Protein backbone atom coordinates (compact mmCIF):
# COMPACT_ATOMS: atom_id res chain seq x y z
CA UNK A 1 0.00 0.00 0.00
CA UNK A 2 1.36 3.43 -0.95
CA UNK A 3 1.95 5.77 1.97
CA UNK A 4 0.83 9.34 1.35
CA UNK A 5 1.22 12.31 3.66
CA UNK A 6 -1.29 15.11 3.24
CA UNK A 7 0.67 18.11 4.42
CA UNK A 8 -1.14 19.77 7.30
CA UNK A 9 -0.01 23.37 7.57
CA UNK A 10 -3.33 24.91 8.54
CA UNK A 11 -4.84 25.32 5.12
CA UNK A 12 -8.44 24.55 4.28
CA UNK A 13 -10.70 21.55 4.25
CA UNK A 14 -8.32 18.60 4.14
CA UNK A 15 -10.78 16.05 5.44
CA UNK A 16 -12.12 15.21 2.00
CA UNK A 17 -8.58 14.98 0.61
CA UNK A 18 -7.70 12.34 3.18
CA UNK A 19 -10.92 10.43 2.58
CA UNK A 20 -10.53 10.50 -1.22
CA UNK A 21 -6.93 9.23 -1.06
CA UNK A 22 -8.10 6.44 1.24
CA UNK A 23 -10.87 5.62 -1.20
CA UNK A 24 -8.32 5.05 -3.96
CA UNK A 25 -6.26 2.77 -1.74
CA UNK A 26 -3.55 4.91 -0.13
CA UNK A 27 -2.44 4.71 3.46
CA UNK A 28 -2.92 8.35 4.42
CA UNK A 29 -1.48 10.44 7.24
CA UNK A 30 -2.49 14.04 7.80
CA UNK A 31 0.48 15.70 9.43
CA UNK A 32 2.82 18.68 9.37
CA UNK A 33 5.68 16.59 10.71
CA UNK A 34 8.74 17.00 8.48
CA UNK A 35 10.23 13.53 8.95
CA UNK A 36 6.93 11.83 8.16
CA UNK A 37 6.45 14.07 5.12
CA UNK A 38 9.97 13.28 3.91
CA UNK A 39 9.58 9.54 4.41
CA UNK A 40 6.21 9.11 2.68
CA UNK A 41 5.97 7.59 -0.81
CA UNK A 42 3.98 10.63 -1.93
CA UNK A 43 3.38 14.11 -0.52
CA UNK A 44 0.09 15.86 -1.22
CA UNK A 45 0.20 19.65 -0.74
CA UNK A 46 -3.30 21.14 -0.41
CA UNK A 47 -4.06 24.86 -0.30
CA UNK A 48 -7.01 27.20 -0.49
CA UNK A 49 -7.57 30.91 0.02
CA UNK A 50 -5.07 33.70 -0.44
CA UNK A 51 -1.81 32.80 -2.23
CA UNK A 52 0.47 34.80 0.05
CA UNK A 53 -1.19 33.62 3.26
CA UNK A 54 -0.92 30.06 2.00
CA UNK A 55 2.75 30.34 0.98
CA UNK A 56 3.50 32.09 4.27
CA UNK A 57 2.03 29.21 6.24
CA UNK A 58 3.79 26.68 4.02
CA UNK A 59 7.19 28.32 4.50
CA UNK A 60 6.80 29.14 8.21
CA UNK A 61 5.63 25.62 9.07
CA UNK A 62 8.69 24.10 7.43
CA UNK A 63 6.54 22.50 4.74
CA UNK A 64 8.27 24.37 1.92
CA UNK A 65 11.66 22.97 2.96
CA UNK A 66 10.20 19.47 2.89
CA UNK A 67 8.82 20.03 -0.59
CA UNK A 68 12.25 21.26 -1.80
CA UNK A 69 14.09 18.30 -0.29
CA UNK A 70 11.71 15.84 -1.86
CA UNK A 71 11.93 17.49 -5.27
CA UNK A 72 15.74 17.51 -5.14
CA UNK A 73 15.68 13.80 -4.27
CA UNK A 74 13.19 13.06 -7.06
CA UNK A 75 10.47 11.99 -4.59
CA UNK A 76 6.87 12.62 -5.73
CA UNK A 77 4.95 15.72 -4.67
CA UNK A 78 1.46 16.71 -5.84
CA UNK A 79 0.19 20.23 -5.22
CA UNK A 80 -3.47 21.13 -5.57
CA UNK A 81 -5.12 24.52 -6.16
CA UNK A 82 -3.12 27.12 -4.18
CA UNK A 83 -0.74 24.32 -3.24
CA UNK A 84 -0.06 23.97 -6.98
CA UNK A 85 0.19 27.74 -7.42
CA UNK A 86 2.73 27.98 -4.58
CA UNK A 87 5.28 26.06 -6.72
CA UNK A 88 5.47 29.07 -9.08
CA UNK A 89 7.49 32.24 -8.51
CA UNK A 90 4.80 34.64 -7.35
CA UNK A 91 1.19 35.74 -7.66
CA UNK A 92 -0.43 39.07 -8.45
CA UNK A 93 -3.06 38.36 -5.78
CA UNK A 94 -3.43 41.13 -3.20
CA UNK A 95 -1.67 40.89 0.15
CA UNK A 96 1.70 40.30 -1.51
CA UNK A 97 5.05 39.91 0.14
CA UNK A 98 5.27 36.14 0.30
CA UNK A 99 6.67 34.98 -3.04
CA UNK A 100 6.15 31.40 -4.14
CA UNK A 101 8.63 28.55 -3.87
CA UNK A 102 9.95 29.23 -7.38
CA UNK A 103 10.24 25.54 -8.25
CA UNK A 104 8.66 26.53 -11.56
CA UNK A 105 9.19 29.81 -13.39
CA UNK A 106 6.23 32.06 -14.04
CA UNK A 107 3.57 34.11 -12.32
CA UNK A 108 0.11 33.32 -11.08
CA UNK A 109 -2.34 36.03 -12.13
CA UNK A 110 -6.02 36.86 -12.08
CA UNK A 111 -8.32 35.17 -14.59
CA UNK A 112 -9.74 37.52 -17.19
CA UNK A 113 -13.29 36.26 -17.70
CA UNK A 114 -16.81 37.68 -17.51
CA UNK A 115 -17.55 35.64 -14.37
CA UNK A 116 -14.87 35.07 -11.70
CA UNK A 117 -14.27 32.90 -9.62
CA UNK A 118 -14.16 30.10 -12.15
CA UNK A 119 -16.39 27.74 -10.20
CA UNK A 120 -17.47 24.41 -11.57
CA UNK A 121 -16.66 21.48 -13.85
CA UNK A 122 -14.47 22.17 -16.89
CA UNK A 123 -12.78 19.96 -19.47
CA UNK A 124 -9.00 19.83 -19.63
CA UNK A 125 -6.89 19.80 -22.79
CA UNK A 126 -4.53 17.05 -21.74
CA UNK A 127 -0.83 17.06 -22.62
CA UNK A 128 0.20 14.23 -24.93
CA UNK A 129 1.81 11.47 -22.91
CA UNK A 130 0.20 12.50 -19.61
CA UNK A 131 0.27 9.88 -16.87
CA UNK A 132 -2.08 11.65 -14.47
CA UNK A 133 -4.92 11.93 -17.00
CA UNK A 134 -4.57 8.47 -18.53
CA UNK A 135 -8.10 7.13 -18.94
CA UNK A 136 -9.82 10.40 -17.97
CA UNK A 137 -8.72 12.60 -20.87
CA UNK A 138 -12.30 13.48 -21.77
CA UNK A 139 -13.67 14.06 -18.28
CA UNK A 140 -14.49 17.31 -16.52
CA UNK A 141 -12.82 18.32 -13.25
CA UNK A 142 -13.96 20.65 -10.48
CA UNK A 143 -12.29 24.07 -10.39
CA UNK A 144 -12.77 26.88 -7.91
CA UNK A 145 -10.27 29.74 -8.28
CA UNK A 146 -9.83 33.34 -9.35
CA UNK A 147 -6.11 33.15 -10.14
CA UNK A 148 -4.04 30.74 -12.20
CA UNK A 149 -0.67 30.38 -13.92
CA UNK A 150 -1.08 31.25 -17.60
CA UNK A 151 2.10 29.91 -19.13
CA UNK A 152 4.79 27.36 -18.52
CA UNK A 153 8.19 27.74 -20.16
CA UNK A 154 10.16 24.66 -19.16
CA UNK A 155 9.95 21.20 -20.70
CA UNK A 156 7.15 19.41 -18.86
CA UNK A 157 3.72 17.92 -19.55
CA UNK A 158 1.41 20.93 -19.40
CA UNK A 159 -2.36 20.47 -19.57
CA UNK A 160 -4.62 23.49 -19.95
CA UNK A 161 -8.21 24.57 -19.42
CA UNK A 162 -10.19 27.61 -20.43
CA UNK A 163 -12.19 30.18 -18.51
CA UNK A 164 -12.35 33.41 -20.45
CA UNK A 165 -8.79 32.59 -21.49
CA UNK A 166 -6.51 29.58 -21.45
CA UNK A 167 -4.61 28.81 -18.26
CA UNK A 168 -2.43 26.02 -16.90
CA UNK A 169 -4.68 23.36 -15.35
CA UNK A 170 -2.02 20.77 -14.53
CA UNK A 171 1.73 20.23 -14.76
CA UNK A 172 3.65 16.97 -14.67
CA UNK A 173 7.34 17.73 -14.26
CA UNK A 174 9.03 14.53 -13.18
CA UNK A 175 8.45 14.00 -9.48
CA UNK A 176 6.78 17.40 -9.08
CA UNK A 177 3.19 17.64 -10.26
CA UNK A 178 0.18 19.79 -9.58
CA UNK A 179 -3.38 20.54 -10.57
CA UNK A 180 -5.30 23.81 -10.42
CA UNK A 181 -8.55 21.84 -10.03
CA UNK A 182 -9.55 19.73 -7.04
CA UNK A 183 -9.22 16.00 -7.81
CA UNK A 184 -10.62 15.20 -4.35
CA UNK A 185 -13.86 16.99 -5.30
CA UNK A 186 -14.01 15.74 -8.88
CA UNK A 187 -15.98 12.56 -8.25
CA UNK A 188 -14.95 9.42 -10.15
CA UNK A 189 -12.74 11.36 -12.57
CA UNK A 190 -10.78 12.78 -9.66
CA UNK A 191 -10.50 9.34 -8.05
CA UNK A 192 -9.12 7.96 -11.31
CA UNK A 193 -6.55 10.74 -11.57
CA UNK A 194 -5.36 10.16 -8.00
CA UNK A 195 -5.15 6.43 -8.68
CA UNK A 196 -2.87 7.27 -11.61
CA UNK A 197 -0.74 9.39 -9.31
CA UNK A 198 -0.50 6.64 -6.69
CA UNK A 199 0.75 4.28 -9.39
CA UNK A 200 3.72 6.57 -10.02
CA UNK A 201 4.83 6.43 -6.37
Amino acid at each position, binding site marked *: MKRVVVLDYGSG*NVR*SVVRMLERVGAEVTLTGDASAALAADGLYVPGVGNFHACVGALVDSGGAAVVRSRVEAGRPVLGVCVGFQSFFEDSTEEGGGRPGLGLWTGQVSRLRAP*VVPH*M*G*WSPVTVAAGSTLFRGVEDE*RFYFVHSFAPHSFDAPALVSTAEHGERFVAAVEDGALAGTQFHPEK*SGDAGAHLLTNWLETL
Partner: protein
Amino acid sequence: MTVAVRVIPCLDVDAGRVVKGVNFDNLRDAGDPVELATTYDEQGADELTFLDVTASFAGRDTTYDVVGQTAEQVFIPLTVGGGVRSVQDVDRLLRAGADKVGINTGAIHRPEVIGEIRERFGAQVLVLSADVRRDGRGGFEVTTHGGRKSAGLEAIGWCARAAELGAGEILLNSMDADGTAEGFDLELIEAVRREVDIPIVASGGAGRVEDFVAAVEAGADAVLAATVFHFGQLTIAQVKDALRAAGYPVR
Protein backbone atom coordinates in the same frame (compact mmCIF):
# COMPACT_ATOMS: atom_id res chain seq x y z
CA MET B 1 -18.57 29.27 -21.82
CA THR B 2 -16.83 25.95 -21.28
CA VAL B 3 -17.53 25.51 -17.58
CA ALA B 4 -20.57 23.28 -17.15
CA VAL B 5 -23.85 24.66 -15.84
CA ARG B 6 -24.09 23.17 -12.37
CA VAL B 7 -27.27 21.39 -11.32
CA ILE B 8 -27.58 21.43 -7.55
CA PRO B 9 -30.13 19.65 -5.34
CA CYS B 10 -30.80 21.37 -2.02
CA LEU B 11 -31.57 19.51 1.21
CA ASP B 12 -33.15 21.24 4.20
CA VAL B 13 -31.66 19.62 7.28
CA ASP B 14 -33.13 19.92 10.78
CA ALA B 15 -31.12 18.39 13.61
CA GLY B 16 -29.48 15.95 11.22
CA ARG B 17 -32.66 14.91 9.38
CA VAL B 18 -33.88 15.97 5.94
CA VAL B 19 -37.11 17.92 6.20
CA LYS B 20 -39.37 18.92 3.32
CA GLY B 21 -40.66 15.65 2.02
CA VAL B 22 -38.49 13.36 0.02
CA ASN B 23 -40.16 10.69 -2.04
CA PHE B 24 -37.85 8.17 -3.68
CA ASP B 25 -38.77 4.52 -3.95
CA ASN B 26 -35.23 3.23 -3.65
CA LEU B 27 -34.27 4.95 -0.41
CA ARG B 28 -34.16 3.06 2.83
CA ASP B 29 -34.46 6.23 4.87
CA ALA B 30 -35.57 9.36 3.03
CA GLY B 31 -34.76 11.44 6.07
CA ASP B 32 -31.09 10.49 6.06
CA PRO B 33 -29.08 13.30 4.44
CA VAL B 34 -26.08 11.07 3.83
CA GLU B 35 -28.07 8.47 1.91
CA LEU B 36 -29.88 11.14 -0.08
CA ALA B 37 -26.62 12.95 -0.88
CA THR B 38 -25.10 9.70 -2.11
CA THR B 39 -28.13 9.08 -4.32
CA TYR B 40 -27.93 12.54 -5.86
CA ASP B 41 -24.20 12.10 -6.42
CA GLU B 42 -24.89 8.87 -8.32
CA GLN B 43 -27.57 10.65 -10.35
CA GLY B 44 -25.07 13.24 -11.53
CA ALA B 45 -25.51 16.20 -9.18
CA ASP B 46 -22.65 18.66 -9.69
CA GLU B 47 -22.75 19.96 -6.14
CA LEU B 48 -24.92 19.58 -3.07
CA THR B 49 -26.34 22.25 -0.82
CA PHE B 50 -27.41 21.60 2.76
CA LEU B 51 -29.52 24.27 4.36
CA ASP B 52 -29.43 23.85 8.11
CA VAL B 53 -32.80 24.96 9.44
CA THR B 54 -32.09 23.75 12.98
CA ALA B 55 -33.21 26.13 15.67
CA SER B 56 -31.31 24.70 18.65
CA PHE B 57 -27.56 24.64 19.29
CA ALA B 58 -27.69 20.96 20.24
CA GLY B 59 -29.43 20.15 16.96
CA ARG B 60 -26.78 22.07 15.11
CA ASP B 61 -24.06 19.78 16.42
CA THR B 62 -25.93 16.90 14.81
CA THR B 63 -25.87 18.77 11.52
CA TYR B 64 -22.09 19.15 11.75
CA ASP B 65 -21.86 15.38 12.16
CA VAL B 66 -24.03 14.89 9.09
CA VAL B 67 -21.85 17.24 7.05
CA GLY B 68 -18.81 15.24 8.11
CA GLN B 69 -20.36 11.90 7.23
CA THR B 70 -21.49 13.23 3.85
CA ALA B 71 -18.05 14.63 3.03
CA GLU B 72 -16.55 11.22 3.80
CA GLN B 73 -18.74 9.49 1.23
CA VAL B 74 -19.56 12.00 -1.45
CA PHE B 75 -16.72 13.45 -3.50
CA ILE B 76 -18.41 16.46 -5.05
CA PRO B 77 -18.53 19.96 -3.56
CA LEU B 78 -20.77 20.52 -0.58
CA THR B 79 -22.19 23.91 0.43
CA VAL B 80 -23.68 24.33 3.88
CA GLY B 81 -25.71 27.33 5.00
CA GLY B 82 -27.90 28.28 7.92
CA GLY B 83 -27.09 30.15 11.12
CA VAL B 84 -23.66 31.34 9.94
CA ARG B 85 -22.65 34.59 11.63
CA SER B 86 -18.90 34.62 12.19
CA VAL B 87 -15.49 33.50 11.00
CA GLN B 88 -15.66 30.82 13.72
CA ASP B 89 -18.90 29.42 12.30
CA VAL B 90 -17.28 29.17 8.87
CA ASP B 91 -14.16 27.58 10.32
CA ARG B 92 -16.27 24.94 12.07
CA LEU B 93 -18.24 24.07 8.94
CA LEU B 94 -15.11 23.86 6.77
CA ARG B 95 -13.49 21.60 9.34
CA ALA B 96 -16.60 19.45 9.38
CA GLY B 97 -16.15 18.92 5.64
CA ALA B 98 -18.04 21.72 3.89
CA ASP B 99 -16.35 23.21 0.82
CA LYS B 100 -18.43 26.36 0.73
CA VAL B 101 -20.47 28.11 3.37
CA GLY B 102 -23.63 30.11 2.80
CA ILE B 103 -24.28 33.27 4.79
CA ASN B 104 -27.61 35.11 4.86
CA THR B 105 -28.99 36.98 7.89
CA GLY B 106 -25.55 37.09 9.50
CA ALA B 107 -24.27 39.23 6.62
CA ILE B 108 -27.35 41.48 6.67
CA HIS B 109 -26.79 42.24 10.35
CA ARG B 110 -23.05 42.75 9.97
CA PRO B 111 -21.84 43.09 6.35
CA GLU B 112 -18.18 43.37 7.50
CA VAL B 113 -18.25 39.66 8.31
CA ILE B 114 -18.06 39.00 4.56
CA GLY B 115 -14.67 40.69 4.39
CA GLU B 116 -13.49 38.90 7.53
CA ILE B 117 -14.36 35.52 6.06
CA ARG B 118 -12.75 36.39 2.73
CA GLU B 119 -9.57 37.49 4.50
CA ARG B 120 -9.30 34.22 6.37
CA PHE B 121 -10.50 31.63 3.88
CA GLY B 122 -10.75 33.34 0.48
CA ALA B 123 -13.80 34.45 -1.46
CA GLN B 124 -14.27 31.01 -3.00
CA VAL B 125 -15.68 29.53 0.22
CA LEU B 126 -18.31 32.19 0.74
CA VAL B 127 -21.78 32.06 -0.81
CA LEU B 128 -24.05 35.02 -0.17
CA SER B 129 -27.51 33.56 0.20
CA ALA B 130 -30.14 36.21 -0.59
CA ASP B 131 -33.86 35.62 -0.03
CA VAL B 132 -35.43 38.18 -2.35
CA ARG B 133 -38.99 39.26 -3.07
CA ARG B 134 -40.59 41.92 -5.27
CA ASP B 135 -41.14 45.12 -3.35
CA GLY B 136 -44.40 46.10 -5.06
CA ARG B 137 -42.77 49.18 -6.59
CA GLY B 138 -41.09 47.48 -9.52
CA GLY B 139 -37.95 46.59 -7.58
CA PHE B 140 -36.64 43.83 -5.34
CA GLU B 141 -35.96 43.69 -1.62
CA VAL B 142 -34.07 41.37 0.69
CA THR B 143 -36.11 39.46 3.25
CA THR B 144 -35.44 37.51 6.43
CA HIS B 145 -37.47 34.91 8.33
CA GLY B 146 -38.16 32.79 5.26
CA GLY B 147 -39.45 35.71 3.21
CA ARG B 148 -41.87 37.05 5.81
CA LYS B 149 -39.97 40.15 6.93
CA SER B 150 -38.34 42.88 4.90
CA ALA B 151 -34.70 43.45 5.76
CA GLY B 152 -35.01 47.02 4.51
CA LEU B 153 -32.38 46.41 1.84
CA GLU B 154 -32.68 46.88 -1.91
CA ALA B 155 -31.76 43.45 -3.27
CA ILE B 156 -29.73 44.15 -6.41
CA GLY B 157 -27.54 46.67 -4.60
CA TRP B 158 -27.08 44.26 -1.73
CA CYS B 159 -25.86 41.50 -4.05
CA ALA B 160 -23.43 43.92 -5.71
CA ARG B 161 -22.14 45.11 -2.35
CA ALA B 162 -21.67 41.56 -1.06
CA ALA B 163 -19.70 40.70 -4.20
CA GLU B 164 -17.51 43.75 -3.62
CA LEU B 165 -17.00 42.87 0.05
CA GLY B 166 -15.79 39.40 -0.86
CA ALA B 167 -18.54 36.88 -1.52
CA GLY B 168 -17.48 34.32 -4.14
CA GLU B 169 -20.95 33.38 -5.32
CA ILE B 170 -24.58 34.41 -4.90
CA LEU B 171 -27.37 31.97 -4.12
CA LEU B 172 -30.29 33.98 -5.39
CA ASN B 173 -33.54 32.70 -3.99
CA SER B 174 -36.82 34.19 -5.17
CA MET B 175 -39.26 34.03 -2.27
CA ASP B 176 -42.11 34.90 -4.66
CA ALA B 177 -41.34 31.98 -6.95
CA ASP B 178 -40.31 29.53 -4.22
CA GLY B 179 -42.72 26.63 -4.01
CA THR B 180 -44.82 27.72 -7.00
CA ALA B 181 -43.18 25.39 -9.56
CA GLU B 182 -43.98 28.11 -12.11
CA GLY B 183 -40.43 28.96 -13.03
CA PHE B 184 -37.55 31.04 -11.69
CA ASP B 185 -37.91 34.82 -11.39
CA LEU B 186 -36.02 35.63 -14.59
CA GLU B 187 -36.14 39.40 -14.18
CA LEU B 188 -34.47 39.03 -10.80
CA ILE B 189 -31.70 36.88 -12.27
CA GLU B 190 -31.19 39.34 -15.14
CA ALA B 191 -31.07 42.30 -12.78
CA VAL B 192 -28.42 40.72 -10.54
CA ARG B 193 -26.44 39.46 -13.56
CA ARG B 194 -26.14 43.03 -14.83
CA GLU B 195 -24.54 44.13 -11.56
CA VAL B 196 -22.29 41.29 -10.43
CA ASP B 197 -19.51 39.25 -12.06
CA ILE B 198 -19.38 36.41 -9.53
CA PRO B 199 -21.32 33.20 -10.20
CA ILE B 200 -25.08 33.21 -9.62
CA VAL B 201 -26.98 30.14 -8.44
CA ALA B 202 -30.67 30.54 -9.33
CA SER B 203 -33.13 29.15 -6.81
CA GLY B 204 -36.87 29.12 -6.28
CA GLY B 205 -39.67 28.19 -8.64
CA ALA B 206 -38.31 25.27 -10.65
CA GLY B 207 -41.12 23.14 -12.05
CA ARG B 208 -40.28 21.99 -15.58
CA VAL B 209 -36.99 21.38 -17.39
CA GLU B 210 -37.61 24.49 -19.51
CA ASP B 211 -37.49 26.58 -16.34
CA PHE B 212 -33.85 25.63 -15.77
CA VAL B 213 -32.91 26.54 -19.34
CA ALA B 214 -34.63 29.92 -18.98
CA ALA B 215 -32.74 30.64 -15.75
CA VAL B 216 -29.42 30.01 -17.49
CA GLU B 217 -30.46 32.18 -20.44
CA ALA B 218 -31.24 34.92 -17.91
CA GLY B 219 -27.67 34.71 -16.61
CA ALA B 220 -27.49 31.98 -13.97
CA ASP B 221 -24.28 29.93 -13.77
CA ALA B 222 -25.92 27.19 -11.73
CA VAL B 223 -29.46 26.07 -10.95
CA LEU B 224 -30.73 24.79 -7.62
CA ALA B 225 -33.94 23.00 -6.76
CA ALA B 226 -35.38 20.90 -3.95
CA THR B 227 -38.95 19.72 -4.37
CA VAL B 228 -38.88 18.66 -8.04
CA PHE B 229 -35.89 16.44 -7.33
CA HIS B 230 -37.01 15.14 -3.93
CA PHE B 231 -40.38 14.03 -5.28
CA GLY B 232 -38.89 12.51 -8.39
CA GLN B 233 -40.87 14.85 -10.65
CA LEU B 234 -37.64 15.59 -12.50
CA THR B 235 -34.29 13.87 -12.50
CA ILE B 236 -30.96 15.63 -12.67
CA ALA B 237 -30.33 13.84 -15.96
CA GLN B 238 -33.53 15.29 -17.47
CA VAL B 239 -32.51 18.80 -16.47
CA LYS B 240 -29.06 18.28 -17.96
CA ASP B 241 -30.50 16.86 -21.18
CA ALA B 242 -32.63 19.98 -21.58
CA LEU B 243 -29.66 22.26 -20.93
CA ARG B 244 -27.52 20.30 -23.38
CA ALA B 245 -30.23 20.46 -26.04
CA ALA B 246 -30.34 24.24 -25.55
CA GLY B 247 -26.61 24.41 -26.26
CA TYR B 248 -25.24 24.74 -22.73
CA PRO B 249 -22.32 22.62 -21.50
CA VAL B 250 -23.16 20.12 -18.77
CA ARG B 251 -21.15 17.44 -17.05
